[in-house]
């Protein structure tokens, strides 16, 4: 049994007076203990909403979540608010995108670490402070003892994200969800944070769901990758086959739009035309069809299913041929 089994997860946002909006539309994936799974896609593809739904952190009103999120066999979606609070921070940890706004500006770092230890590990404030200094040291924050009494604004961006990682891992959760943890950071700091995450995941055996729009992050970290578009998984494969041989035109386009060091001089980047549509995209044919260079008439009429193969699952009527180089083929 996998550690986490997400089955047919669906999140519909509905406000009075507006059309319901399906942000996540039947997403399924597994995460094994110690495994790192990537959820990749551009803004609005439903990756963050998926993670918030797993954590039970979606707003209490205005949305409908269905499907199953089985964690060690228990469907988290059926748990009461109280039971879910017992699990969050203990079994499941989460690191967010913007480390400055994710820390409380008026509370010292120390308390923000210790409160989770006091909550789930029943530690006294004093013991928790000792543990907190240890945790901050372990995520690479120099002089952790002094940092305990400092406030978020006194730390650098990278430090803050390290502190948030320390908080998320304080109770040794079996699953860590990182939602774009490096997006708000400088490039050099990004690399450090990714290296840290990789190391911590390896050392603690924590499973990791990595949510990102950055394929570079995926390439360096993930064992398995789910590419999301319009709230659905369009391609799912292990890291190597996905990068070596992307089959979905969307995945292919994502890879083609990354600058490469080994590309020819003067080679142009190939963007994916258009942007994610806001309306319900999967009702009439493929949601990616309007932007897809490979689109056939059938793509606009028949909604493609996610078909599982040996190395990958693919949702496409007319996939990119195996071995097509990413950067040359798609017309600009």
């Amino acid at each position, binding site marked *: 049994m996998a550690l986490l089994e997400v089955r047919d997860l669906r999140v519909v946002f509905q406000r009075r007076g507006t059309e319901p909006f399906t942000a996540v539309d039947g997403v399924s994936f597994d995460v094994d203990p110690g495994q790192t799974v990537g959820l990749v896609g551009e803004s609005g593809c439903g990756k963050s909403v998926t993670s918030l739904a797993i*954590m039970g*952190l979606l707003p209490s009103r205005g949305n409908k979540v269905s499907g199953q999120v089985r964690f060690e066999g228990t469907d988290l979606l059926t748990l009461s*608010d109280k039971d*879910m*609070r*017992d*699990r*969050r*921070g*203990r079994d499941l*940890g*989460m690191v*967010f995108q*913007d480390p400055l*706004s*994710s*820390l*409380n*500006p*008026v*509370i*010292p770092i120390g308390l923000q670490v210790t*409160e*989770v230890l006091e*909550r*789930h590990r029943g530690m006294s404030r004093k013991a928790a402070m000792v543990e907190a200094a240890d945790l901050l040291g372990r995520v690479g924050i120099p002089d952790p003892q002094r940092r305990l009494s400092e*406030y978020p*604004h*006194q730390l650098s961006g990278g430090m803050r994200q390290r502190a*948030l990682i320390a*908080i*998320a891992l304080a109770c040794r959760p079996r699953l860590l969800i990182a939602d774009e943890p490096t997006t708000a950071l400088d490039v050099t700091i990004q690399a450090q944070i990714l290296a840290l995450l990789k190391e911590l995941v390896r050392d603690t055996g924590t499973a990791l769901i990595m949510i990102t729009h950055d394929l570079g992050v995926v390439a360096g970290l993930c064992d398995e990758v789910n590419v999301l578009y319009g709230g659905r998984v369009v391609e799912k494969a292990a890291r190597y086959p996905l990068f070596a041989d992307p089959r979905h035109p969307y995945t292919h386009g994502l890879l083609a739009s990354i600058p490469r060091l080994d590309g020819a001089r003067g080679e142009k980047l190939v963007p994916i035309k258009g942007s994610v549509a806001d309306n319900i995209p999967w009702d009439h044919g493929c949601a990616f069809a309007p932007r897809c260079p490979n689109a056939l008439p059938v793509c606009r009429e028949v909604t493609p299913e996610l078909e599982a193969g040996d190395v990958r699952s693919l949702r496409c009527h007319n996939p990119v041929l195996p071995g097509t180089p990413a950067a040359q083929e798609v017309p600009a």
Partner: protein
Amino acid sequence: MLRFIVRRLLQAIPTLLILSLLVFVWLRSLPGGPSGALLGDKATPEKIEALNKVLGLDQPIYIQYFKFLGRILSGDFGSSLISGEPVVAEIGRALPATIELSLAALLFAVVLGIPLGYLAASHRGRFLDNSTVIGTLVGVAVPVFFLGILLKQLFAQDLALFPPSGRQDVTIDPTHVTNFAVLDGLLTQEWDAAADALWHLVLPAVALGTIPLAVIVRITRASVLDVLNEDFVRTANAKGLQAQLIRRRHVLRNAMLPVSTTIGLQTGLLLGGAVLTERVFVWGGLGSLLAQGIERRDYPRLQALLLLAAVVYVLVNLLVDISYAIIDPRVRAS
């Protein structure tokens, strides 16, 4: 912190100087003057001129101002033209009543306003929230004196639950220590006096405190709603903290920043409302001094009262700044 306070107090000096000038000029630009008011029906232009000379009002206004400034720097605010008593003594006698009323009103507004605002925010869009929002709308719209008269009619006259006027029952003979009626009762252990003073406070405090209450509720509600959407609240939830702890530690403290500003502003405005409330409930604080002073153009008394209001305003603002520094470490740093 001490340096911060001292700096702010020094900054207040030019503010008060400018205010003193404005007050001085403004009072003298009002039609009529103390001489005419003092002489009443017997006033003739000659008599007024003669009295003006006695009072020093015939001199150029800038000379009057510098003389006034010189005197107040040595603590002499002059004597009231109505009672002949030094205005400092007059005000000192009436001040405790006004402070007591203002504090009671403020206490009523804050103690009720913050929880109510929080409650409304956490029930956003539901009945409790909607009725609170409508209630506060009515609250800010009702004039103080009208509410005072209404409360008096209903609770003092019709239902006879509270005394209609005054600070203490005439049958009680309290020992005066500080002239704060409730405090005196407690200090001297005259419990019946304290209780009676408290009883007299209820209606005026509610009348005076209703507008600040409504404003505080609205600001607290808006501020809590803002904070509830903050990322760090989501982080706190991701930690699995108990809802109550999140509320106390993460939401309330951050939400208090705009609320403390509001409390400060409302405290400054209380003085104006206090004058009207004191009139309705025959309270005998600064309100009657001020009203009488304006009618009779009692320059010395009015100057002192208005400057006092300015000082209170400055001090309240200082308190707000200090509370900011206590709540928010980022303010402390800068």
